[in-house]
């Protein structure tokens, strides 16, 4: 039983696997997660059917957890309607599996979608012979390069049309970007977009910051999509730091050990080796707990924790990727200025004083001015409005 505040006392008398299971199943509602959840629910509720919602965040920050929570809550909400209408499905959640070799496998994606919709006879789908089959619901067979996936795609569209889920939640959507050549990158997201549009079903795509590359590919795509971020906790920010500490404290209280360990005093160590991602922190604690339980289940020593921690190199790598992604998402004054200039809201200024940004951009260089007309070799800031 998951109780608020702390683990139930009788858990201590249970065998080790039960205790481990308890902690593994624990999910805490830390502020970032809660906010992202609220944003996502609002987005699903308020946007027009057929939109795309992109949830981005580093690995281990809690995106899958977020989707699980959304799935549960939507199902709870729609229970009365599901009683009345047995055809309807509340929400579909599936994972975009990384292909073993080559491009992203659409056939597999559609098949998983069909299974998630509890569709019968998935292996027996045929291509509908003519578009005139169902002209009344606008689902036409698109001429596709890949005939095998085309019939599964048509079947998936039909299934979505009939089952009318509130949303389709796609986890690990950054795998969509795994394709052979850059030219087809736009096609991938276009496929999702056209399915969403055709079936008037909102699609929620979750993924790491590589997802960003997909959604900024075309203006049309940027227009129709909404972005939500689930970031890590940054130690530089007072509130976020406190939130991280709170989360750590909550975990600490829920560890089913005889002696509650004190993790909060060394919170910066925990922050360092989890780079502020609650998911990473939880996995780490779970691993350590498993070892402690095997050893007897009395306490969790610092040594155990240190052994199970990620290495510095791993953390540095994770952090580098995360920071790169975060940087690209941050809206800066310069980007805004560029937008305004392009819209002719402001005149072109020659010597623009560059204001300080939240995080220093490592690639800006102070060079002497080049010839007139030549741009300085810096990266342009690009950004996506966060919800």
């Amino acid at each position, binding site marked *: 039983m*998951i*109780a*608020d*505040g*702390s683990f139930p006392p009788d858990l201590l008398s249970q065998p080790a696997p039960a205790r481990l299971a308890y902690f593994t*199943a*624990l*999910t*805490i*509602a830390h*502020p970032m997660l809660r906010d992202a959840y609220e944003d996502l629910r609002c987005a699903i509720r308020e946007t027009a059917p057929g939109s795309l919602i992109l949830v981005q965040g580093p690995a281990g920050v809690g995106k899958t*957890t977020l989707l*699980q*929570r959304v*799935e*549960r809550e939507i*199902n709870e909400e729609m*229970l009365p309607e*599901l*009683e009345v*209408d*047995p*055809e*309807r499905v*509340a929400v579909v959640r599936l994972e975009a599996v990384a292909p073993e070799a080559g491009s992203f496998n659409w056939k597999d994606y559609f098949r998983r979608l069909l299974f998630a919709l*509890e569709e*019968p*006879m998935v292996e*027996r*789908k*045929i*291509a*509908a*012979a*003519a578009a*005139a089959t*169902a*002209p*009344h619901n606008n689902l036409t067979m698109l001429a596709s390069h890949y005939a095998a996936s085309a*019939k599964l795609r048509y*079947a998936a569209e*039909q299934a979505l049309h*009939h*089952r009318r889920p509130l949303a389709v939640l796609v986890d690990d959507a950054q795998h969509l970007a795994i394709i052979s050549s850059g030219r087809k990158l736009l096609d991938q997201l276009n496929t999702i977009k056209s399915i969403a549009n055709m079936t008037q079903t909102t699609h929620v795509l979750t993924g790491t910051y590589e997802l960003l590359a997909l959604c900024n590919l075309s203006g049309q795509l940027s227009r129709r999509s909404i972005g939500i971020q689930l970031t890590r906790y940054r*130690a530089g920010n*007072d509130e976020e*730091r*406190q939130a991280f*500490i*709170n*989360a*750590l*404290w*909550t975990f600490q*209280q*829920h560890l089913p050990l005889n002696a509650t360990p004190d993790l*909060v005093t060394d*919170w*910066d160590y925990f*922050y360092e080796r989890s780079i502020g991602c609650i998911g990473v922190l939880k996995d780490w604690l779970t691993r350590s707990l498993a070892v402690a339980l095997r050893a007897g289940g009395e306490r969790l020593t610092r040594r155990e924790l240190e052994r199970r921690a990620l290495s510095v190199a791993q953390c540095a790598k994770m952090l580098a990727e995360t920071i790169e992604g975060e940087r690209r998402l941050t809206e800066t004054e310069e980007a805004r200025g560029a937008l305004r200039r392009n819209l002719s809201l402001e005149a072109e200024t020659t010597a623009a004083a560059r204001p300080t940004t939240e995080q220093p951009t490592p690639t800006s260089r102070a060079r002497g001015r080049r010839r007139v007309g030549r741009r300085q070799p810096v990266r342009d800031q690009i950004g996506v409005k966060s919800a």
Partner: protein
Amino acid sequence: MTRTRLQTPTVYPAWNLALPRLPPRSRLYRLEPIGVGTPAVESLTGYITRLAAAHSVDTGTLFREELVPLFNRSYLLTPEGKPVPSALVFIKTIHALNGMSRGAAAWVSALETLTRFDHLRYLTLLAWKDVLTLRSLTRTKRAWCPDCFTEQREQRQPVYDALVWTLNCITVCVRHRQRLETLCPQCGKWSALLTGKARAGYCFHCQAWLGSSVEARGDTDDGFSGALMDDVRAATVVGEMLALSPKFPALLARHRFSTLVSEHIAHCTKGNTSAFARFIEVDYLKVKQLKSGMNLPPLDVLVHILQRLGLSPSDFFSGSQAMVDLPDQRDIQPLPKKSKVVGFLQSALTDANRPSTGELAKRIGYKQEGQFRQTCPELCKAITARHKPARSPQSFYRPRLQTDRAIRDALSGALEENPVPSLQTVAERLGYKYAATLKGRCPDLYRSLMMRRRMHLRQKAEQTKRVLEAVLEEDPPPTLRTVRQRLGYTTDTTLKYQHPELCQAIIARHKDFVQAITMKIQPALEGALTEYPPPSVRQVARNVKRSIGKLYRLAPALCRKIAARRLEHLAHRAAQKRAALRCEIKRAVVELHAAGIYPSPARVTRILPASVAYLMRREDSLKLYGEALHELGIGG
């Protein structure tokens, strides 16, 4: 990282991520059945095709995967219990699906389970189970109206098969006033009501679109024939019936129809059933059965009655009175009173004519004597007992087709014939279907003809046996086909049946022969490739004693190679000869010139050795001659 003052940490609540218990979903999509409560209601078979199309599978696949497991019929399952592929084919009475049988009920309940719907039974005629009879109710071949399909498609509505089109007595479309089609315009085939690749609006076999073309529509407004309009009216009534059933199921209860018939008889013709039968133009016996509830009416009869009474189905079944003009009540003979009947019968006992009860019934105003037997059975028996001996003998038998004499003549004539005809032939000549009648009528001649025929057949068999044995000695061994053609049979079956071993021997012999040829030919051809001088294909053929065509058929590539090689050799030889000729001409010219004689062609030819001299006749040789002269600088 500088450590700021730590606040007291707060605990965050835990989230429950487990999914709630969901009510079960429908396994198949809940497609809304079209037209329930209207005349244009969809048929169950059409609904199934639409359901399959929505799931983008073949209809047969839907049937096999989803419906068969619900039926649990052994003939649809393999020994392991899985559904048989193409299981739909095994349902021979698929047309009954749209009807009222138990099978239809089973299908409806299965589909209702899968889609979690509850009003699918109105896609069939199940609501009319207690009112109509099953006989010739549904069609076996699918029928449709092309204009309806086109209209549905143009208005972007789902294309569907209507229930009225599955009824045998409906032959027209009410909306478009034209006959229903049963044959596909593209492949010309008719189809059953449901097949493996069925799709609404398309031919079940060739998948051609069945809607009408634009030009064909719209020009049926002129000259509706009377018969067509009658059918349209009947179809309209049936449409109203179908629209009625979902709304008022209670009206269609058992025995309701017979009750209503009795009421109408009482109302229209004062209880006189035969007058009523005349009034509604239905056979009297049928009316009697319907009134008593013994039989249920077929659909066309019910429609006819409704039309004659001028009532719509809803009016009829809610018990309204007939709307048409009733026959003149004075013309209808009222039924006699019971007391009168008894008195009448008793007086008939003493009648000198000894009438039968049937005649008495007619006299008194009944149509048949059944009423007598009900009221006073003993009197009836007495009357009949009196009547029977006085009756002229009737033959209850059908008159004979042929007289005995004719049969005897035919049989004896057949005995003389050569070859002896079979008994079946004789029977057919006489006009009988089977020879058994002959046996009964004329057993001795029958028997002798039979024996003669048997002997004849036996002799024939012996003959063929001898022929076959002779064939076994033939060389080259012929095919069984040639033998059979020689003997005059059109198939192998008789031969193989009568003399199986001989036929097998002939076949085997021929096969070996062909094999041997192939075996001989192949090495001969290959050998020819290495021979010098290269032979022609014709020579090789002569060597193996086969025709050239055979060789080419067996190994065309090899033959071509041989031929090419030969040609090449011949060309080479010709070139050699030409070179030799050139030399000789030169030599001869030089000789003559040295001798001071002008080397004219004739002289040169005379000098040339015989091996090349004959070539001088050719034109190109003269060219060579000219060249030789030119080379040597001799003018000419």
